[in-house]
């Protein structure tokens, strides 16, 4: 009998915290989900709302996602109005007071940033398209920001589960130790890409370029959310040819047929980069995503 009790106890220990005791963390994006799992470990259960293959600007606000939000102890979102088209709708439907703004369960991960790029100066006008008024929200494409977000998550998880605070913070430090040398290595590997400017399909690669030291010359879709005019595309193509651009970079959810035509006209290679964890094969994790990004950029530069 004693043996059974001991075995049962060992099984319970090995199984880790029971699901009911685990901190329920809902992340809007796959990148945030990966970071939350790394930081939270077995003490948290992570659910992601926007699958990697969806453009996070336009996720359909399915009520089933609201149900997931309804069970959350902690909501981690990108912020800077990236999810403004669907998260408020889900929040209303979720009826979960633990994650309402101002509560400990509400975590705007953009708070971790030291610098927000492309914050509009002066008056914001929709003549420029659907501009994000608080700045470019695609900061997770700089892995240094990922580490900052991981630290922020650890602090907030620690606040919500003080008993596991040390473990959350230790995991965030461990992640930093793991990624910091790779961040340097990725930057070094990208040297060939720095030789020529890049054209991008949409303005979502600014943080990546800032980190890697890339020159971004122009965007096919220069006004966010608005289809480019043929005249503008002609202009970008002319500029790209004059500058000897080799690569046109795009996200998997961009209009790749239009991007491919533009790339062909500028004698450049269309390079589809994972803009989120899980958005292309091989980019199933945050670190793996940067492996794919650097690999494809360098391969494109050599084409």
């Amino acid at each position, binding site marked *: 009998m004693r043996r059974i009790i001991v075995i049962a106890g060992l099984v319970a220990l090995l199984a880790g915290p029971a699901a009911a005791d685990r901190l329920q963390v809902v992340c809007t994006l796959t990148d945030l989900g990966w970071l939350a799992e790394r930081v939270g470990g077995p003490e948290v259960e992570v659910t992601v709302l926007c699958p990697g293959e969806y453009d996070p600007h336009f996720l*359909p606000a399915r009520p089933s996602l*609201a149900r997931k939000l309804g069970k959350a102890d902690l909501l981690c979102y990108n912020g800077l109005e990236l999810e403004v088209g669907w998260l*408020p*709708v889900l929040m209303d439907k979720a009826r979960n007071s633990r994650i309402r703004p101002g509560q400990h369960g509400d975590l705007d991960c953009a708070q971790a940033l030291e610098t927000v790029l492309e914050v509009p100066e002066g008056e914001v006008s929709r003549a420029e398209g*659907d501009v994000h008024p608080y700045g470019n929200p695609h900061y997770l494409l700089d892995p240094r920001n990922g580490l900052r977000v991981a630290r922020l998550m650890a602090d907030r998880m620690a606040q919500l589960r003080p008993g596991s605070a040390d473990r959350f913070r230790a995991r965030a430090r461990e992640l930093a130790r793991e990624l910091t040398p790779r961040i340097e290595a990725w930057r070094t590997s990208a040297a060939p890409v720095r030789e020529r400017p890049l054209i991008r399909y949409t303005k979502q690669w600014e943080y990546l370029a800032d980190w890697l030291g890339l020159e971004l010359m122009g965007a096919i879709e220069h006004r966010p*959310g608005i289809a480019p005019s043929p005249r503008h595309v002609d202009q970008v193509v002319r500029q790209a040819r004059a500058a000897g651009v080799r690569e046109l970079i795009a996200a998997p959810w*961009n209009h790749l047929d239009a991007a491919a035509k533009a790339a062909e006209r500028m004698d450049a290679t269309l390079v589809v980069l994972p803009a989120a964890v899980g958005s292309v094969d091989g980019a199933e994790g945050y670190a793996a995503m940067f492996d794919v990004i650097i690999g494809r950029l360098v391969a494109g530069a050599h084409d």
Partner: protein
Amino acid sequence: MHPVRILVGVAVTAMLAGAACAQSTTATGVSRASNPAISVNTLLLGRVADEATANEYNGIRIQEAEVQLTSIVDPYWKANLVFAVHPEHGHDHAEDGAEAEADGHDHGTRYVGDVEVAYVEGTALPYRLGLRVGKDYLPFGKHVPLHTHQFPFVDAPVAVKTFLGDHGLTEIGARLSRDLPLPWYSDLTAYAVDGKAEIFDAESRDLAFGARWTHLVDLGTESTLELGGSWLHGPQAHGYLAGEHAHEDHDDALYPDLDVLGADVTFKWVSASRSKGPALNVTGEVILPSSDTIEGDPFGWYAFAQYRFARSWWLGVGVGGLDLDREMHEDEHEHEEEEHAHEHAHLFAWDEVFESKVNLTWAPSEFSALRLEAAHYDDQQGDADDWLISLQANFTIGSHPAHSY
């Protein structure tokens, strides 16, 4: 209300808001940090009918202008207010003088303003309960809760207009909602309201109440299937479904309670392959009113499909029907034959209607759309039919809250 007065009112409100924004928060104590999100949506409509002569179906007008304010009130409530300006109801219906009666025209569109929506919604209720108190569209079916700028076609389906009111089913009251613990998303909403909408007897002191139960199942990450059932109960308005030429001898009678049942099904698919890629929305709904004074078994339905075939382009196809299933009195019959024999002023005033619609929408951004639509209405008797061609411009300025799924 005169349109100029309304526009001046809106302009003054905007100026006051602007003045508040311009002021220094520390020097004046007037902070803009907590200002509500403000948006204005306007629908411009130009249309022409083949037969109908009323202004409602001919000419250019503002279909609706809607000012919306949304904000968190405090840790417990969120508020939403919509002030709408639209053509005066009934003004097109040749009720405004002998001249109008003679030719079916009015002379200049009059506009009226109305508080369309004004509610607070609880944000900190226990047990994941939802509570909404104030004025809002009733949660009946899929079409009634839509604001005009969300309509899939320029006009609401004939069945909705006839059975649930021509001018939107908004009511003051309270509604309670709960996501039920089922394996799929299932939301039950029950409400009690004032019962003063046009389908109800405004002089009655009885409340109206009802419920809606929706079930939504994910079919993968790109598709959903929704099934809904609705029920509405309240004091029936005098003349409900009685038609334009109904007998007057019911006027002093006690009208019974009205019950309306509805069932709807919706399939949605949004391709994950690219931003604003292909998308499909197919919806169907049936509506069944009943009461002690309603003859026969009136029945209405509609179905439509909207397909996004290119980044900024939508194609819409819709059909619908209405059958009042009532026996016409002799004098009504004569009157209707007379109406059919001559050029008539109005569409839809038939006991049986089949409608079919097709539209093409160009939506270059989330904030503007142009829609060209052709609609055909048939009385199913071979006596009357009509075509209605519409061009609608829809634009939104300001911070407009995202629409629900």
